[in-house]
């Protein structure tokens, strides 16, 4: 099943040529470098938002509303006259926080569940069905229902989205564990006397790192977009608090008249997702033992 499928991606010995090897190294470095740089820039922007923002993101300046990008407002203003640049900078904080928090908790929870499932067949049967059940729900619906019950706030958005995305990581980890456990070198290691924990740590985690990282980068993107969708539907983070998704959804109505409201936070999301993915790609290439030799 998924286990065998994942096995396709995992270690296998091959002998590439020198040219291919060189190309990989160059490509990898560039990729990681670009990803890191962009991500760092975004993170710094978020961190220093109060210093960098020309205006208070919440200050309303109605006569200046819906003005296009100009010297006074480099990103333009929204329907309340709020400065989009400031809101985008502050929005970075919340969007990145939501994205990373959801990724962190979903990944952590997913790894735990995946490990448990992979090593304990009885728990596996039950837990995997539960995970399947959760995945069978439309993400949006689950999030909406949770948000309607818990109330709109950043914390609840993180909770709801983490819950929704945990099963994906769990599945991937479980698959990796199952495959590794069946590999011969694990038997060999055990024969030599290595403890189960050591096997887990050395082989399982390292070898499943690759697909988990890929999933994690996707989840960050999904989380940021999920937050945007929840704002769009009115059950997300309260609208006066700037998040990239929230600004985009509020700017929806003005798409023809004042597209800058949606474009700049949209570009911010694209940049962040892009850099995260580049980073993820690069990390995966580093960590994947097979590719190390190619």
């Amino acid at each position, binding site marked *: 099943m998924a286990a065998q499928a994942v096995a396709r991606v995992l270690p296998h010995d091959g002998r590439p040529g020198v040219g291919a090897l060189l190309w990989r190294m160059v490509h990898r470095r560039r990729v990681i470098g670009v990803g890191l740089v962009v991500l760092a820039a975004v993170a710094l922007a978020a961190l220093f938002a109060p210093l960098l923002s020309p205006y208070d993101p919440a200050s309303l300046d109605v006569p200046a509303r819906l003005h296009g990008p100009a010297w006074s407002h480099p990103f333009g203003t929204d329907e309340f006259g709020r400065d989009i640049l400031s809101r985008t900078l502050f929005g970075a904080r919340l969007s990145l926080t939501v994205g990373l928090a959801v990724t962190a908790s979903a990944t952590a929870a997913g790894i735990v569940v995946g490990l448990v499932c992979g090593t304990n067949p009885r728990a596996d049967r039950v837990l995997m069905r539960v995970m399947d059940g959760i995945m069978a729900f439309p993400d949006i619906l689950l999030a909406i229902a949770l948000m309607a019950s818990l109330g709109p706030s950043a914390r609840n958005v993180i909770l709801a989205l983490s819950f929704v995305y945990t099963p994906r990581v769990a599945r991937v980890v479980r698959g990796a564990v199952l495959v590794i456990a069946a590999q011969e070198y694990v038997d060999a290691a055990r024969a030599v006397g290595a403890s189960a924990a050591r096997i887990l740590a050395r082989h399982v985690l390292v070898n499943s790192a690759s697909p988990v990282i890929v999933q994690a980068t996707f989840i960050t993107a999904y989380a940021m977009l999920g937050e945007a969708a929840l704002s769009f539907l009115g059950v997300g983070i309260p609208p006066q608090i700037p998040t990239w998704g929230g600004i985009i959804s509020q700017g929806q109505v003005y798409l023809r008249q004042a597209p800058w409201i949606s474009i700049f936070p949209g570009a911010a999301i694209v940049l962040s*997702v892009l850099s995260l993915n580049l980073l993820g790609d690069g990390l995966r290439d580093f960590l994947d033992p097979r590719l190390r030799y190619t």
Partner: protein
Amino acid sequence: MRYLLRRGLWTVAALLGVSVVIFLLVHLIPGTIVDILGGGEGQLSPEQRAAVMHQFGLDRPLPVQYAYWLGSIAQGNFGWSFRSGQPVGQLLVSRLPITMELAVLSVAGVAGVGIPLGILASVSGSLRVKTAVQVIGLLGLSLPNFWIAVLLIIAASYLFHWLPALIYVPPWTQPWVNLQQMFLPVLSLALGLAAVVVRMTRSSMLEVLGQEYVKVAQAKGVTRAGVLLRHALRNALIPIITVLGLQMGYLLGGVVITEQIFGLPGLGWMLLNGVYQRDYPVVQATVMLFALTFIVVNLAVDLVYTYLDPRIRYG
């Protein structure tokens, strides 16, 4: 065969689990149909509230309500919508084809475009091509689907001066009109999915192409294209199919917003409204249907694995 039976049993168990969760979840959301009916403007008196609660059976204890609901589902009766009074089963049947068409066309579009693009990215030597494919895919992944949807509407109407017919027609009545109506919604959904498929295709193709038996085949004199098609593609398809199966969740979620923006009377939008209006029978039945679809699709995916890789067998 035994395998199918076991999976069948687990499916039932999973569905039962889903039923409990959705029942509890939807009942726990604050507010009931009574609040929505009153709406705050017209106010229902305590007697009226009691009458409505009784009419919908909401005054019974939760476990009793759950038992009744489960029992009636087992008999094929999905209840009646609190809001429109129509039988839920009928609603499901009339709206399922629309959502199905949307989902199937989107998956087909993604596979039809994403897989070739992924293959291109994996075999092409040009860095430019690889980057271009990656960026296009990532663009679809990082833009909110409601944004993509509205951008498409605006682009179509203002740039191309084209809009499909307003009122939905099913494909068996007027297939061409129907396809036009589906075009933009499918495009917006597919763009969101494409990135994942492109990536997975590319990476799994890369893995496969680097493997020994491929080199052996090349040494034997099989042409590159031959290698691609016969060996690589077949094995590369496995993780791709996995991903497509996993993407059902995303799809079912995206469908909700897409249907609403494009005005398609499908299951997703009905579900969304059902949640807002606390229309329990509609929400519960629709989620069960989604869950069943998801499980069935995953079963199909697993069965396709056996076809693609004879080494995979289920005991």
